[in-house]
């Protein structure tokens, strides 16, 4: 049984139908990369899986249970954690407090403040700093750490490298590789295609709310993805996909 399966999911974001019938599934231990231009519906899809948006139709099935109508805080309890776009830290609170909040769901597991600080050594001296005063890389580490604190079975990462310097991105990805090798299931939204393909086993490219391309990360070409990304594949084909 897949850890997560998304079945013909339609999500409205405000009035916008941001996700227009998406289906896919993720097995335990897999890493799925989600790419696509802005407004393609990636963030909305992740947020819908995490329960921040309710589906207009279709289903999200996690660990065998239908999540329809389950609010976001309950989903954290079931083992889904989201690192939201823009980090969304509680800027008035310290790094430690942000991390402790991740424990609200009370799921048993190995993650502790200490372990997060071990994993992201750059946070160690910043433990009692307000999250609003952190650098971009430190903020990102805190956001990932906060999600890990709930000991999730499924980790959703939205644009973790956005606004970071390449050096910091390398560091973030090094820690992600650690997580992946320890068996954590991950869905990752990433702008940087090469990075996305290098860590993932599967890739989905979204365009205007739909899946424009899905494949094995090793087998898709950069060119294919670029075409799907800008919606040029269908112009070239001279038609509109059904």
């Amino acid at each position, binding site marked *: 049984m897949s850890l997560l399966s998304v079945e013909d999911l339609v999500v409205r974001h405000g009035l*916008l139908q941001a996700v227009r019938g998406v289906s896919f599934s993720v097995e335990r231990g897999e890493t799925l990369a989600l790419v696509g231009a802005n*407004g393609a519906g990636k963030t909305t899809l992740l947020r819908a899986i995490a329960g921040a948006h309710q589906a207009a139709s279709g289903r999200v099935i996690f660990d065998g249970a239908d999540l329809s109508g389950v609010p976001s805080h309950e989903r954290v309890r079931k083992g889904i954690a989201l690192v939201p776009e823009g980090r969304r830290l509680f800027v008035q609170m310290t790094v430690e407090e942000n991390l402790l909040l991740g424990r609200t769901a009370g799921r048993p597991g190995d993650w502790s403040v200490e372990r997060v600080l071990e994993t992201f050594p750059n946070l160690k001296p910043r433990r009692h700093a307000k999250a609003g005063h952190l650098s971009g890389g430190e903020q990102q580490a805190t956001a990932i750490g906060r999600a890990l604190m709930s000991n999730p079975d499924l980790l959703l990462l939205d644009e973790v490298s956005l*606004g970071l310097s390449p050096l910091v991105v390398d560091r973030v990805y090094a820690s992600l590789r650690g997580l992946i090798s320890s068996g954590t299931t991950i869905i990752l939204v990433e702008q*940087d295609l090469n990075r996305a393909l290098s860590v993932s086993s599967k890739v989905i490219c979204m365009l*205007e709310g739909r899946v424009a391309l899905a494949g094995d990360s090793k087998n898709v070409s*950069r060119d294919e993805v670029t075409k799907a990304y800008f919606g040029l594949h269908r112009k070239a084909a001279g038609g509109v996909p059904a």
Partner: protein
Amino acid sequence: MNAMPNGAILSAAGIHKRFGALVVLDDIDFAMGAEEAVGIVGPNGAGKTTLLSVLSGAYPPSAGTIAFKGDDVTTLPATQRCRLGLVRTHQVPKPFGGMTAFENVFVAASHGAGLGRDEAYEEALGSLKLCGMLGVANRRAETLGLLDRKRLELARALAAKPTLLLLDEIGGGLTDGEAGELVETIRELRRRRIGIVWIEHIVHILLQVAERLICMDAGKIIADGDPQGVMADPQVISAYLGGGPK
């Protein structure tokens, strides 16, 4: 770049915008001629919407100057800039929810364009018609769907009789047919000699209208010129997709 090209209708020089420690616009120089149609693309967080907000007067730049029709408008509030003919739309439509679609547009015609009653009626109806909204003219805006709200956003800006229109992602979430209509509408604006600056993520729509394309990334302009050329620019591709070819 201190000397603005002659005949520039809008020129911005040395624009910086910071929110706290966050630098969103980093030394932007931008000038365009009247009747030009300029597209702006760039990945999330590149500062496109912020640039539009600074140009339209929603908030002042942290540094730099903006001139419109030869006058310095850097400190002029949005209301005044609108009355001068520099009008914007909002990425997330901001309709006057308790008013009908017609009333929404009428406000812009009578205040933004400063028209008398009958001219304002003509202008408002004309804008609604151009945007295909006559059929829902009597609906309260809060009851409209997203597509109609986006159209209303455009119709309302048009009714203020802009000489230069700043469009922020009016194409998002449209079906192909709807996008086609939108392109037609924009082409009609061009025939009416209205200058256009258009931020859009749906690049293939933008390419049908823009005669010049600017790509922004991390608060800077990284490419500016012929649309096909800009889209082929490796720097632009890597701004979107990162890294070099695989």
